[in-house]
């Protein structure tokens, strides 16, 4: 191929790439603007400070405080639960298994599959297994926690694979065991990556409607214990938008706006932590 052809091809790819970025930005901006406009228009103090009254879904007074609190409790609990499993898995993969280990690739492959399974399947399976058990906040935390494990583990694993072997060798040559190296050196190096992975999992947890509808249930009050059913924002939005009343449907947009603000706050918070935790990182 001569030079003129190569330059033409390059220009073509450049245009394609730019078009892709522009389309993405337009779609994304439309969504944000729609939710913000429609949502903020109908956002009231009542919506975020009160639980729904008996007539709420028919247009009566009240708010979605139950769902806000429920969602935050559920997603936080689930993300913490998922971390306690995902972090040791990742440390094990990096410290105990070699780069070319068959077992390690098998675990990664399995987690990729788990990541891709629709959450309704998790919900349905747990309903079958826990047949007869009442829907509760605890069940929601456990199931969403399980859903989050592959998300957290794979995101963190990608970072862990980039840690240079020299860092681990430095720790070993001071007489550290593999366990000490994993928790005292590798985990410290991975902290910033962990924050990002935690956020990713939290986002998946707080945004999920399908599984929580089945296992956490729904309730008009804030759960008083782990064994009571809990409302969540996505499920609340679903119920509101399903009603035939325009007033309630408008509140659904406002609820969506609240959900978006919560995710934005968590993202900003994690950025803040990120710079704190990356202070000591070796492999920046």
């Amino acid at each position: 191929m001569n030079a003129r052809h190569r330059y033409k091809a390059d220009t073509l790819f450049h245009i394609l790439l730019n078009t892709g970025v522009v389309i993405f930005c337009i779609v994304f901006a439309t969504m944000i603007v729609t939710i913000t406009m429609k949502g903020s228009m109908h956002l009231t103090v009542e919506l975020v400070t009160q639980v729904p009254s008996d007539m709420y879904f028919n247009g009566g007074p009240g708010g979605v405080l139950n769902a806000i609190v429920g969602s935050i409790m559920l997603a936080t609990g689930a993300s913490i639960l998922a971390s306690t499993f995902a972090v040791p898995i990742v440390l094990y993969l990096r410290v105990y298994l070699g780069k070319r280990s068959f077992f390690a690739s098998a675990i990664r492959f399995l987690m990729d599959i788990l990541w891709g399974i629709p959450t309704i399947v998790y919900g349905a399976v747990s309903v079958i297994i826990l047949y007869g058990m009442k829907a509760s906040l605890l069940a929601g935390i456990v199931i969403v926690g399980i859903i989050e494990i592959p998300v957290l583990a794979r995101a963190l694993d990608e970072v862990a694979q980039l840690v240079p072997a020299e860092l681990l060798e430095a720790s070993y040559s001071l007489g550290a065991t593999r366990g000490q190296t994993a928790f005292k050196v590798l985990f410290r190096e991975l902290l910033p990556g962990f924050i990002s992975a935690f956020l990713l999992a939290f986002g998946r947890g707080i945004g999920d409607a399908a599984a929580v509808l089945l296992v956490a249930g729904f309730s008009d009050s804030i759960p008083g214990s782990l064994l009571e059913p809990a409302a969540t924002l996505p499920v609340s939005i679903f119920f509101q938008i399903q009603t035939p009343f325009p007033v309630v449907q408008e509140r659904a947009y406002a609820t969506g706006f609240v959900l978006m603000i919560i995710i934005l706050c968590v993202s900003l918070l994690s950025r803040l932590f990120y710079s704190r935790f990356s202070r000591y990182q070796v492999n920046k």
Partner: protein
Amino acid sequence: MEKSAHLEAKNLSVSYGANQAISGLSLRIPDNSITVIIGPSGCGKTTLLKSFNRLLDLGDNVQVTGEVLVDGENIYSPTADVPGLRKRMGLLAQRPCPLPMSIYDNVAFGPRLHGLRSKKDIDLLVRRELAEASLWDEVKDRLHEPATRLSVGQQQRLCLARGLAVRPEVILGDEPTSALDPVSSKKIEEKFLALRSIYTIVLVTHILRQAKRLADYIVFMFNGRIVEHGPAKEFFENPKEDLSREYISGVIS
């Protein structure tokens, strides 16, 4: 007169898959002196060095046969205490690799692992080891800054201080100055010369002049075997093998 040795390789062979890196090598490392391993790239220098603290077996597909004896005990026996062994073999890597923590914590890391708790003792130890590595004056006002903010030369001296803090018997250096500027290299070399009366030092280098400056004892390797080894003066002034002569005069490198 032969010096005593508590580090010894006996009929050691190492291979990476089908690739034989060291074949049937036997060697005694003399105590309290600097032994320098030289040889062309890929001759097995680093492999030999890493076999001394069992960092080798971390890699995939590595087979080690034969023995490495530390105080007469084979470190490749299945019952060997590997972390305990590595504590006795300080390692200075090619590129300095600080741990993801502060300067202070880097030095304190090893002793804390091995049970040192008292804040006062740790303070003293950090100060002593940083001074030992000639780094104290440069970092005394910023002990709690991340170690990664130091220059590469300072980082390598920090790694030396960190290694010395666990009181090793042997210091292994894998081309420890290859990533450093000339001034920093000189500082590290001076440290080695100062430390040799207390420690047994084994260095790998590809710089012949550095070997001449530092070595008490030379091990010349080629293709996974020792061609010649002996006191440095003898080796450089009167090499016995043709290969050694060619290497010293720069015909092979």
